[in-house]
Structure formats: C-alpha cells, structure tokens
C-alpha cells in the first residue's frame, strides 16, 4: 500500500480519484477525526454512540421531556410527602369532611383522614406496583418470546399457543379470581403486582418473538454462529440488544397500563386493601360523595390521569428516539 504523505484529507481524496497510485491508497485522514467526513450519499451519520444519540433525541423532544419531568416530580414529591408531611396517610384527625384548606390542601374524608397524604401515598403505591409489573412482565415476556422466536418449530408452537390461551381468557376475570383470593390472604401490594405482571407479559412475548424471527435470519447472527458462539450467547449477547428498542417502549406502556389495571381492581375493591391506599381505591372511595365532597373524587382522578399521561408521553418519546429510521440527518 502506498501512502501519500503531506496531503490534507480533501486533496488526498482528489488524488485517489485521479491517479493510478491512489487506487491502492487507504484514504487515511490522519489523526483528525475521521468520522466527521460525510459519506458520498450526502447524508452524515451523527457521530456519537448509539446511546448518546437516543438520549440526545429524547431530551430534544418537548413532549418526552415534559412527561419525564412530571413523572419524576410525582415520584420524588410523593416520597418527600411520605417522609415529611405532618400527617401520615393512616392518620385520623378530628376534622371530618373538611374542604381543602392550608392545613389539609386536599381536604379530609368522612373519618378525618388527610387526603393530601393519602393521594401522595397512593401515587407512590401505584408507581411501585407499575414498575414491579413492568419488570415481571417484560422479563417473562422477553424470555418466552425470545425462546419461541429463536428456536421456532415445536417450541414456538407450544409457547405461542400458551400465549394465545392466556390472551383469550378475559384478563379481568383472572384478576378478579386471583386478586380476590390473594388480597384476602395477604394485603401486600407486591402480590397484586405479581399477579398483574403474570397476565400482562403476553404482548411483550409476541413482540419479542416477532423481532427474533426477523433477527435470526440476519447475517450477523449467522456470522456469530460461524464464529463459534453458542445459542445462549447468540440470544443474549447478539440478538437481544438488537431488540431493546421495542422492548423498552413496550415496558413503558406496560407501566401505564398496569396502573390502569390496578386502579380498575382497586375500584372494584379487589386491589389494594385499606388501610393501604392507591389512587384507584381513593377514586372508589370518593365516587359516592363526588357531588357533595367533590375533593374526595377530583384530586385522586386528576393525579391518576396526570400520572398515566406522563408515562405515555415518556413511552412515545422513547419510541421516537429509538426509531432507527431517524438516525440519519441531512448534512
């Protein structure tokens, strides 16, 4: 190989096109950043790592960043209120059915409980449940989906028919039966989260399976097999990272939907049991007096809606940020 010393990148490129010697020159751009040159298509890849690119795109989306800010604000303030507010969510004061005031910003209920403390604790409780559900559903769904999509054949048929089975049983019916049984035996929110998680993994499984079916035909999977990678190594280290985008987006949606599901259950009296509170339970308790003691109904509903919307905004922002079709910008 012949090197042409002492030429700036531009000149060297010119030379390559015109001289015989240039044909065998590696277009060395020297120590200057070789990545800054746009390729011949007139499009330039953004010269950052993929994670940095995704983060950059995420924080430059107003909707996503608003959603994240609201969610973070709710999570942090619910923690702070739980620790520092002068009423606990279980406290009973002798101010009954009081409208919002300075000492009770959201009023009190019929037995004198401080609604502000309860709403904030309910928010925290919902976030805890939702995150647990997301972890359970995503890991279970990914495991089953990846196995089915990678191995295909009988494994696939068996696992996917199992998914179908879970999908055709009305979720609410399973939840009512299971939650009723569990919540009578244990009032722990964790079991409720586990149950919701065990019925919401099916969508993740189908998504990951579909992704794996297409990924397994890609050349780099074949290439890593030809390099002696074992099945497990191929799945975990080569294919899974390529499916991260949809998995993460789906996980956010699972967070939002599990809050809806938990609220539904609690509203039906099958979810979180008093004295613990969740937003759904508060909405349920407040609905009877919605026309008279409006604050008991309105505040939990507002918080519930804001919480769910903020998570959807985050999910939407992630989906946009992870979209590979947006990875190229005009130079």
């Amino acid at each position: 190989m012949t090197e042409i010393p002492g030429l700036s990148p531009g000149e060297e490129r010119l030379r390559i096109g015109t001289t015989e010697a240039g044909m065998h020159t590696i277009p060395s751009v020297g120590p200057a950043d070789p990545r800054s040159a746009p390729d011949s298509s007139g499009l330039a890849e953004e010269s950052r790592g993929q994670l940095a690119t995704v983060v950059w795109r995420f924080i430059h989306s107003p909707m996503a960043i608003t959603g994240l800010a609201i969610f973070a604000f709710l999570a942090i303030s619910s923690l702070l209120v739980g620790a520092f507010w002068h009423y606990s969510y279980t406290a009973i004061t002798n101010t009954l059915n009081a409208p919002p005031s300075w000492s009770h910003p959201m009023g009190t209920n019929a037995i004198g409980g401080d609604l502000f403390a309860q709403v904030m604790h309910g928010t925290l409780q919902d976030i805890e449940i939702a995150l647990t559900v997301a972890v359970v559903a995503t890991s279970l769904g990914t495991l089953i989906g990846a196995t089915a999509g990678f191995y295909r054949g009988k494994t696939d048929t068996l696992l996917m028919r199992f998914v179908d089975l879970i999908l055709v049983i009305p979720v609410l019916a399973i939840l009512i039966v299971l939650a009723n049984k569990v919540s009578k035996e244990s009032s722990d929110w964790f079991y409720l989260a586990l149950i919701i998680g065990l019925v919401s993994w099916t969508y993740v499984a189908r998504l990951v399976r579909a992704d794996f079916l297409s990924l397994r035909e890609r050349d780099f999977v074949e290439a890593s097999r030809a390099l002696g990678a074992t099945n497990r190594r191929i799945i975990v280290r080569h294919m899974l990272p390529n499916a991260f985008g949809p998995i993460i987006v789906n996980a956010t949606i699972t967070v939002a939907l599990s809050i809806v599901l938990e609220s539904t259950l609690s509203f039906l009296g099958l979810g979180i049991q008093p004295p613990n509170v969740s937003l759904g339970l508060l909405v349920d308790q407040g609905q009877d007096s919605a026309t008279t003691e409006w604050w008991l109904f309105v505040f939990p509903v507002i918080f519930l809606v804001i919480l769910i919307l903020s998570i959807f905004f985050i999910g939407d922002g992630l989906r946009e940020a992870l979209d590979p079709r947006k990875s190229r910008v005009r130079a």
Partner: protein
Amino acid sequence: MPEPDRSSGEIFSVENLTVTFKTGTGDVYAVRGIDFSLASHEVLGIVGESGSGKSVTAMATMGLLPRNAVITGSVRYEGRSILGLSEKELAPIRGAQIAMIFQDPMTSLNPVYTVGWQIAEAIRAHQDVSKEEATKKAVALLQTVGIPNAEARVSDYPHEFSGGMRQRVVIAIAMANDPTIILADEPTTALDVTVQAQVLSSLRTALEQTGAALLLITHDLGVIAGFADRVLVMYAGRPVEVGTAEDVFYRPAMPYTHGLLGSLPRLDSDERQPLRQIPGAPPSMTAEPVGCPFAPRCPLRADICETEEPPLRPVGLSGNGAGEAVGAASGHVAACHFADQVVGMPVASMFPATSVDQEEVAS
C-alpha cells in the same frame, strides 16, 4: 496442545458431499457430490455461477444450513469427521479452527456494537482473556488488516465504516483466533471494484499472519486468478473441472470453463477480443439431470452428452492436446466426454460474441 503439522498434508477433506433441500414443491438438488481437500497454507478457489452450489457447500461443511437440508457424504477436519456434529460440539471448532467470512459486510456485523467489541467478542468466545486484553488485540488486528487510526476506530460502530472497511473488520474477526482454515464466501462480491483490491490484500495479510488455508468461494475469476493455488469449477451442484490455477486458466478442459474465461474482459493482452457469452441459463436443480447438465448450452454437444453424465477424468491421458502429461501429473481433472479435444481449442470457435460490432473490433 500439540501443534498440528502445518508444513504439509491434508487438514480438511470433503468426500462425496451432497446437499438436498426438502421444500414444499419438491426436492432441490443443490450439491450433487463434491470431493475436495485442502492442504495447510493452500488456497483453493471454488468458482461457478449463482446457484451452482458453491455457498451451500461451504455452509454444509460448517453445519450452518437450515434444518430442511439433507446432507450426506463426509467432511473431515484434521482427520475427525465434523459432519453431523451437534451445535455444542461444533462451537469450539467454528471460529477457532475454521473461520468464515461472509459475502455482505453491510449485514454480517452487528449494528448495535462497536467493531472493537465484536472482535473482542470473537476472541472471548474461544479464549479466556480479559476484556482489556481482547480489546488490545482487537486494535492490533484492525491495524493488521489496514484500518487507519485503529486506536480511535475500534470504538466506532459498523455504520461509521465504509463497505470495504467493514469487510476488513470481518477479516479481522475471522483471524482473531488464528484459525487453521478460513472459508471466504464471496468476500468481495458486495464491494466496489476499486475496494476489492484493498480487501484482498487484507485477506492475504490475514493468511500470512495466521498461516491458515483458504477456501475462496467466488464467481469472480479475476479474484481466483490472483489468489488460488488450485481451482475447482462448479456447475449444477458438481465440480466440472479441478486443477491448479495454471491448468484451469491456461488449459481449460471443459467447455463451461472455456466460456467463463471467454466472458472475462482481459486487460493483460494486446489482442483485442470480443467478450464471449455462454447462451442459455443454468438448469433448474429441482430434478436430477439426465446426461451432462451443461449439454443444453454446450457447443460440442453430442449424443452421448444427452444420456451419460461424464465423471471427473484426468485430462491429457488419451494423448491428444496441449495438456498432455502436464495435466495428468498435476491432478487436472475435468468432467467432459471431450475434455482432451477441448484443451487448446480457441474460445472463439465455441461461443458467440456478446456484441455485434465484430468488424469494428477486428479493424
């Protein structure tokens, strides 16, 4: 581990390999019996047009074919049969002993990892080394294959490389574990002609550094000419001519090889020759052919060609033609009933020219 004898001898042999794909519309006879062997340090080129079974042969030897492929015959690596081994038994051989280079570097690298990670991953799949050591070796490998500024480029993603650069990265991955054999499946086909030379020189460096033997699969005779010690020409799932590069290029004994060479533009001769074409198309592989599969396209076709498929026979034994004795001694074989007449026959008398302006060329 005892160092295998790399000075001479067969390290890889394929005997009577057949591959049949069971499909919904019937069987496809992709490879119908191929024998070849590879000595250490040797470069064997397999040429043939699309669908002749070149890639399938390579995939079959590595156990990379889909489940509907029925494979018979034997594949031996250092005396051990590796055909039909389980994935688990094959994993330590793949990459470490026999490495593979794929056709399209645009898709054979994982888009979500840096090239350094991917080279290190190849090393760590077979060797118990730390991440740092593997990355250090990755930089060295990138330098070896001619990536400028390797220290910085090692942390770049595949999409930040050009096609030729990516193929060099693929070569670096293939040589990462010092394999004994490298299988290159059309390594330059997806690349620009100007880049091909660079990639081939990287491949040569890889061979020199690792001392590996190379099985080079391509349909580019130019690549083979500059690289291979021996050449195997495939047609319709079978070898039709095998010999040293010299024999096959200068004394082709099969009309198909003649046609292939005639269709290649020559820049090295002063004589202006119109390009030749082989009329027709390769046969469908959904039925086992009766007679010579090349017969429908062959200018020398005779009655025997329609009924009897010629086996590979040594060239030059019947004492007629330029290849006499030389061909026989060097193991030059061809599957043609008229092999000895074909040797030395001018290509112009066999195949039509691609263009009509012959007068212009002649004047």
